[in-house]
């Protein structure tokens, strides 16, 4: 395990949040799970601003992003992250309630890393979350860049 950066879960629906957390809990990942309840909050956390200014944790290992969110929606969050030079390497998995093709196309256009339609079946849902967690938080080798909280090391001569 290269690092134990947190997983950012962005989900407005409390029931989905609870179920997703339950699924993640069962995945027995060591990563801390940070939650955001809307797009604006997620962006504040990601860009370490507002209430999250000076937070300790580094960039997330993965962002599990619900597509439909109040205020700033999932696609806008995705766009903001992928446009940012520092954050664009953070993997984003879009979670959505339905497999509406236009959403999928838009997400991929904006550079989403994966797109998951939340299965109705809990076992499948559980497995999907587990797979995502396993892949992005553990197996995926993150882009070799400094954690946001760590000052850049200057190589001395």
């Amino acid at each position, binding site marked *: 395990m290269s690092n134990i950066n947190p997983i950012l879960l962005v989900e407005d*629906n409390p*029931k*989905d949040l609870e*179920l997703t957390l*339950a699924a993640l809990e069962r995945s027995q990942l060591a990563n801390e799970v940070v939650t955001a309840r809307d797009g604006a909050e997620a962006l504040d956390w990601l860009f370490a601003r507002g209430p999250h200014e000076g937070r300790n944790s580094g960039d997330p290992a993965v962002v599990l992003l619900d597509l*439909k969110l109040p205020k700033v929606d999932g696609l806008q969050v995705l766009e903001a992250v992928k446009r940012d030079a520092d954050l664009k390497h953070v993997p984003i998995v879009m979670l*959505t*309630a*339905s*497999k*509406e*093709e236009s959403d999928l196309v838009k997400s991929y256009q904006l550079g989403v890393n994966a797109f998951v339609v*939340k*299965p*109705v*079946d*809990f*076992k499948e*849902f559980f497995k999907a979350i587990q797979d995502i967690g396993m892949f992005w938080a553990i197996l995926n080798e993150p882009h070799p860049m400094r954690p946001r909280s760590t000052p850049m090391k200057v190589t001395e001569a």
Partner: protein
Amino acid sequence: MSNLEQTDLLTAEENCAREPIQFPGSIQPTGALLSLDHAFNILQASANTTELLGLSPDTMLGKTIQDALGLELGEQIQQELVSSRLANSSTALLRSVVIGESRFDVLAHDNGARIIVEFELSSAEGSLDSVYPDLRSFIEMIQELPEIERITAVAAEEVRALTGFDRVMVYQFDKDWNGTVVAESRNERLPSYLDLRFPAADIPAQARALYRSNRLRLIPDADYVPVPLVPAFDPLTTGPLDLSFSALRSVSPVHLQYMRNMGTPASMSISILVDGELWGLISCHHAEPRRVASHMRTACDFVGQVVAMQIGARSRSMAAAERVVKHRIESRLLARMAAEPDFISGLHVAEEELLSLVNADGVALLLDQRIMLMGKTPPLAQVRSLANWIATERADQEVLWTESLSSLVPQLQIATETASGILAVSMSKLHPSYIIWFRPEVVQTVRWGGDPRKTADAETGRLNPRKSFETWKETVSGQSLSWSATQIDAANSLRQAIVGIVMRKAEEMAAVTDELRRSNKELEAFSYSVSHDLRAPFRHIVGFAELLKETGGIEADARAQRYIDTIIEAAHSAGQLVDDLLGFSQMGRSQLTPVLIDMNKLVEETLRTLHMDTEGRKIEWKVGRLEPISADLTFMRSAWQNLLSNAVKYTRGTDPSTIEIGCDPGENEVTYYVKDDGVGFNMDYVDKLFGVFQRLHRIEDYEGSGIGLANVKRVVERHQGRVWAEGELGKGATFFFALPRNLASEA
């Protein structure tokens, strides 16, 4: 000249066309002529004055007419000139005089440059007054006659009764100056020419011009010896004397030859001028030389004018009546069209009306690539090439007509016997859609008044009508009767009406399309929110029920476990239903992107996704060679998925089971099928099979929302294909779908 060859005739016609017939320099010998200046000095005289008037030209020339002929006549002419009765260029009968032993009718007119005085030998006593009762009853009769045919027939009778000619014909010009004998009155001395047609060249342009300006001409004897004028040229102008309005004017030798060839040495013609235009002639012939007294000629001229007025009036009222008839036909056609989905279907059932609208023999209806032929038309391929020509070369013309299609587009080589004339109207600027009416070659429409060959007389060498007819054929080959203004108007009016209908239908369609687009958008929004918002609670129910199961405390209670399982299962299938519904609605909304699909590969792929369902089953898959086809990959995948999972599902009770996937390549479509040996179905319910939420089995026996086959049907129909099934209860089922080889692009 008795064996006048056709080439000679043509040469003669050409010469004739160039001949300055109004300046012949001579007169016919049935009278004498003097030409005066406006001071009444005699400038020219005909060479026969000595024998007719007893005064030689030489004694008269240079004198005034009073000095030459005596006071009385000279004074009268002067008076007439002063009262300008002579100035209107028509010859006036001044009086009758006796000079020596002969009686003369004295006629005079002023052609602007010269006063022409003619002394015509009177053939008989009599006066205009004596024929007045006849003329009056003629006028009374003719006013009662409604048809031009009857008017001309009565006119021919009247002129023959007045003049005693052997044959009097009424000759009508068409717009190209070809003529037809439309009425005739005759005795047996001369053959009938009724209904015969004559080419325009028979009466050249300058002759027609004279017919217009001078309404009556008489040639008493075609064998006459012309009498020259003395001097030959006008001494003041040194030019030839204009004899346009002269009664005695000498006529063209070609014309005289023509008369001799026809065996008619005497002829007279009276112009029928309708609204100032030369409509036709009353043409009189006699088998022997014949003179007609000037008062009788005046009576005949009067008959001609009355006939012309009546024809003018009848033509106008006929045109009005014809317009009414056309309108009535058009209304009937429109009513038929309104009842049909497009104008072609509407017109197709109304052949008679469609043809009678413009008096055509055949008609072609064209709408995009559809062509319908009715009546006498050229073959389909020729009609198609004609339409293509119109579409490319005459695209901007809404109405197009010709009486000679073969000379307009010789390269198309369209059959002249059916399509010498066409009248085409265009229904659309965007698509090639036309109505094209056809008229046959006119020679085929000639109504012979008896077999013309029987009138041929080889013995006498007369120019027989058959030969004349050959000339006519030569002139008019590939010509149809001309389209009248009323007919062209009727075609155009129908065109406008159809365009109106088509436009209105297009507007209605556009409105429907707009409405459809709007409701599609609504449906899209609806299904989107349904899939999001309806799916979530089901997911929550399933999720929390699962969690509840695991939190313990109810493990012991088997019944509670079963309830929870039921909740999970119910929510699960409700969620599945939402997914299926969304999928189904997407089938209708998504754009098709056809690509060439390797069907074998797609089926293999689909089979792999079914491994969950087939685990532990003994299924023998028999997959044949499936022909590749152009279709939308996503859609086809879903169709195969539904069909194959269906087959797996319904063979569950059969062990081992065989599922066969095959293909039947046809010419225009490829049929694919999935055949299983499962539970099958009763063919009575085959129609319900592909309906949305139609199930033929109890829900507890076979899972699924019942939308799978509806999905297949929708996919296939989006590809303009067909889907059907065969089955037998307990024996298995075969599901077929056929896709067209050439998928038309979506509108």
